[in-house]
C-alpha cells in the first residue's frame, strides 16, 4: 500500500465499525484488514488501547459452545469517533487541496488519477 494507515486512523476505523454494531474479534479483524490493508498483528494492540482508555467495553456471549468476546462502543468512544471524523474531514480537505489545487490547470484530476475525486 502506497499510503499506509497509521495507528490513529486505524483507531478511528475500529471505532466506526463498532458504531454500527457490536462485533467480535475475528469479524473485526476480517473487516479491517480487508479494507485498510493493515496486518493482523496491528489490531489487537489497538483494541487493547481503546479498551484501556475506556473507549470500548467487552462482553462475552455464548456461540455454539464457546465464548465470543464482543466489543462495544462506550459514550467516550462515541465522542472520540466524532472527534476523529471531524479531524479526518479537515485532513482530507487540506490534502485534496494540495493534490488537486483549484484554479490550477496542471492539477486537474485526470483519468490517470482515477477520475474526479468529487
Amino acid at each position: 500500500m502506497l499510503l499506509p494507515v497509521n495507528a490513529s486512523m486505524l483507531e478511528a476505523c475500529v471505532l466506526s465499525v463498532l458504531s454500527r454494531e457490536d462485533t467480535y474479534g475475528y469479524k473485526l479483524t476480517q473487516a479491517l484488514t480487508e479494507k485498510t490493508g493493515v496486518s493482523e498483528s496491528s489490531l489487537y494492540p489497538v483494541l487493547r488501547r481503546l479498551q484501556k482508555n475506556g473507549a470500548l467495553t467487552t462482553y462475552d456471549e455464548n456461540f455454539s459452545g464457546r465464548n465470543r468476546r464482543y466489543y462495544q462502543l462506550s459514550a467516550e468512544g462515541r465522542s472520540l469517533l466524532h472527534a476523529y471524523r471531524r479531524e479526518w474531514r479537515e485532513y482530507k480537505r487540506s490534502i485534496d487541496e494540495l493534490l488537486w489545487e483549484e484554479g490550477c490547470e496542471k492539477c486537474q484530476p485526470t483519468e490517470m488519477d482515477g477520475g474526479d475525486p468529487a
Partner: protein
Amino acid sequence: MTRNDWLAALRARLSALPAEEQESALRYYEELFDEAGSEGEALAHLGDPARHAERILQESGVVAAPAAQAFGEKPKKEPFYRSVWFWLCVIFTLPFTLPLALGLGGAAIGVGCALIGAVVAILAVIASALIGGLVLCAAAFFFLPGSPFAFLAMFGGGLVLSGLGALGSLGIGAIFAAIGKSAKANRAKKAERARQAQTGPEGPKEGSENA
C-alpha cells in the same frame, strides 16, 4: 507448528507483561483460531507469533517502537575501569582491601629486611672469625713466657678460627664473583640483541656472500 505451538510461542514472548495482559492477548488469539475455518488457514493468516508479540510489547511500552529507535551509531562502550561502577566498587571495598594491601606491603618489606639481615649476619660471622682468629694468635704470645702449652692451644685455636674465616670469605667472594659474572653476561647478551635489531637480519647474510 500447531495452534498450541503458536499460542505457546506468543505467551513465551509476552512473559515480561503482567499476567492479566498475557491472558487478554492469549484469549484474543485463541478466539481467532476458534473462528477461523481451519487451523492451517489461521496459522497461514497470522504468520510469525514473534511479530504479534513485538507489536503487543511495543504498545505496552516494554520495547521501544521502531520510530523511537536511533539510527546507526552505537553508543561507544567505555572500558570498565573508567566506569562509575568500577570506582564505586573500589570505594566500597576499601575497608577490606586497604588493610589487606597494607598487610601484604608490610610482609614484603619484612621479608626484604630479613634477607638483608641474613646476608649482613653471615658477613659479620666470617669477618669476626677472621679478625678474632688473628687477635687470638697475637694474644697467645702473652702466654708464651709462662706456659708454652697455653700458647700453643691459643695459637692453634686462632689459626683454626682465622682459617675458617678465610675459607668463608673465599666462599663469599666466589659467590659475588659468580653473581657479577652472570650480570655481565646478561648485559653482553642484551647489547648483542640490540645490535642485531639495529643492523637487521640481513646484515650477517650479506657478510657471508662477500666472503
